């Protein structure tokens, strides 16, 4: 059991209700119900709409996952849930469900970190994570560069966006180009037929004195929007494909450049890329090219595992069970700003301070 724990994971940090089931590092089920269509007309995720959808979708999605996996609830070794970070009200629905489910089944509960889950999910695709692993997480909610030597206890932030998330920039530019929401897939599609060198858009935070691993996409967003507006004001047609390709190139150039540099600086020979933007074809291609040139092995899970899902939560939960990490207690709360350094939220009876000491030691030794 300890080697291959059977764990069900619940994810509700944003607009996807995800329930996944894994056995160790093997994916058994990945059921997702999304409320993305309900948010499309607002151009972004409306927290209350997402929370209402989670409540309606939860029980059917758990049912679906169990059927897909072909297991019964009483065989589970644990229930994992995203405790944070994310939208507070949305997280609370998942945490409430996970607690009730774990309690009713008499199983241990593991409140885990959403970002660490995004990294851990790669175990389901490419086997156990190399230790250490460098991870680039890019989505509508996060743009982070993280270094982990043990996904259950040691995740160290190397850099993060100082303003907008990468995925947000995609959404914004898609909106300016009237291409709809979400922006990632549609920009990717148009960019394939465009010239990435057509327009020289700025690369944020790449100056010699800028922080090496932090990102900024706000300036790029504004530059692209201004460029489009200037064309429109002049009565000229906007070359949508070239704009999409040049904008996308600016984003993925910075992302891959910084990720590869972090690997080199830290002597890490593995890079994993996760989050919704990891589905971007140009990001994958350029990362592959630059990693190969630098002798780094690139690991990118399939797109469905990159976007928010329950399997990633289950993957990290299974690792918690396998490594004997302390379970969470019944008063586990949703923490919308759970720090990335806290891979999970152990119950207090196991000594909160002690756990912090351990992780600090791992962090600097």
């Amino acid at each position, binding site marked *: 059991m300890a080697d291959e724990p059977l764990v069900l994971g619940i994810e509700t*940090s944003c607009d996807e209700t995800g329930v996944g089931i894994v056995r160790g590092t093997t994916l058994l089920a990945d059921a997702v119900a999304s409320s993305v269509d309900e*948010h499309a007309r*607002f*151009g*972004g*995720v*409306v*927290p*209350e*709409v997402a*929370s*209402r959808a989670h*409540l309606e979708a*939860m*029980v059917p999605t*758990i*049912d679906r996952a169990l059927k897909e996996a072909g297991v019964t*609830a009483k065989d589970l070794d644990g229930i994992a849930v995203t405790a*944070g*970070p*994310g*939208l*507070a*009200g949305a997280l*609370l*629905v998942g*945490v*409430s*469900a996970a*607690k*009730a*489910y774990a*309690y*009713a*089944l008499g199983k241990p509960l593991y409140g885990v970190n*959403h*970002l660490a889950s995004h990294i851990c999910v790669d175990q389901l695709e490419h086997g156990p994570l190399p230790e250490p692993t460098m991870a680039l997480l890019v*989505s*509508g*909610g*996060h*743009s*982070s560069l993280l270094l982990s030597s043990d996904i259950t206890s040691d995740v160290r*932030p190397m850099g*993060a*966006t100082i303003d*907008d*998330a990468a*995925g*947000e920039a995609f959404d914004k530019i898609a909106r300016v180009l009237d291409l709809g929401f979400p922006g990632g897939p549609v920009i990717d599609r148009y960019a394939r037929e465009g010239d990435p060198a057509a327009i020289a858009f700025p690369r944020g935070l790449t100056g010699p004195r800028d922080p090496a691993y932090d990102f900024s996409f706000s300036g790029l967003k504004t530059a692209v929007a201004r460029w489009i507006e200037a064309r429109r004001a002049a009565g000229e047609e906007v070359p949508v494909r070239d704009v999409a390709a040049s904008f996308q190139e600016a984003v993925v150039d910075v992302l891959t450049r910084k990720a590869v540099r972090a690997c080199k600086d830290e002597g890490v020979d593995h890079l994993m890329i996760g989050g919704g933007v990891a589905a971007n074809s140009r990001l994958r291609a350029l990362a592959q090219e630059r990693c190969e040139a630098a002798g780094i092995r690139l690991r990118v899970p399939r797109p469905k595992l990159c976007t928010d899902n329950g399997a990633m939560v289950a993957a990290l939960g299974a690792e918690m069970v396998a490594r004997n990490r302390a379970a969470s207690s*019944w*008063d*586990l*709360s949703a923490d*919308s*700003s*759970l*720090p*990335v*350094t806290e891979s999970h939220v152990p119950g207090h009876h196991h000594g909160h301070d002690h756990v912090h000491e351990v992780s600090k030691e791992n962090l600097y030794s």
Partner: protein
Amino acid sequence: MLLLALDTATPAVTVALHDGTDVIASSSQVDARRHGELLLPAVDRVLAEAGRTLEAVTGIVVGTGPGPYTGLRVGLMTADTFGLALGVPVHGVCTLDGLAYAADIEKGPFVVATDARRKEVYWATYADSRTRLTGPAVDRPADIAERVAGLPAVGAGALLYPDTFPTAHEPAHVSAAALAALAAGKLAAGEELEAPRPMYLRRPDAQVPKNYKVVTPK
């Protein structure tokens, strides 16, 4: 019959166990901001106090609101998931009905009002403790003053607005004990209870916060 009742639609986190005849254990804590943390430990405590396990429960009863959404969903999601895991039915009871039952007023009409925040109340009128006449609805107290004039009133929403509800009295919050007793009576009489679905009464604020979806760690 062993019913586990819970309600998180008002500032109270309230849990009770009812054996078909009596409430055998209960817990109520008033803390509007910690519904998510308090509910499961309260269930655990109530079961321990009664010397029962969750597997012995034959049905779940949950307050369906109306109530502030975030807290309301904690009870509903917990009840739904218990129902799934245990394979027992989940019954919904309007939270205001629970308050009306607890008010124990033989002859109405009377009003039950809870705090809907934003200077509004959730309210309903009752002919007696078991019979709702109108509602539930959400309104500004001043806008319904004429309709509730002269009626006895209970609930925190009534206590909060004495201009509209001059004779308001306790109970302020619903108790799961009342909810359980009301549901047990209805089930014994062969009455259908409501589905365990939330009564929001308001459309969601369709506002995309700035930096929506941003969950980057501090």
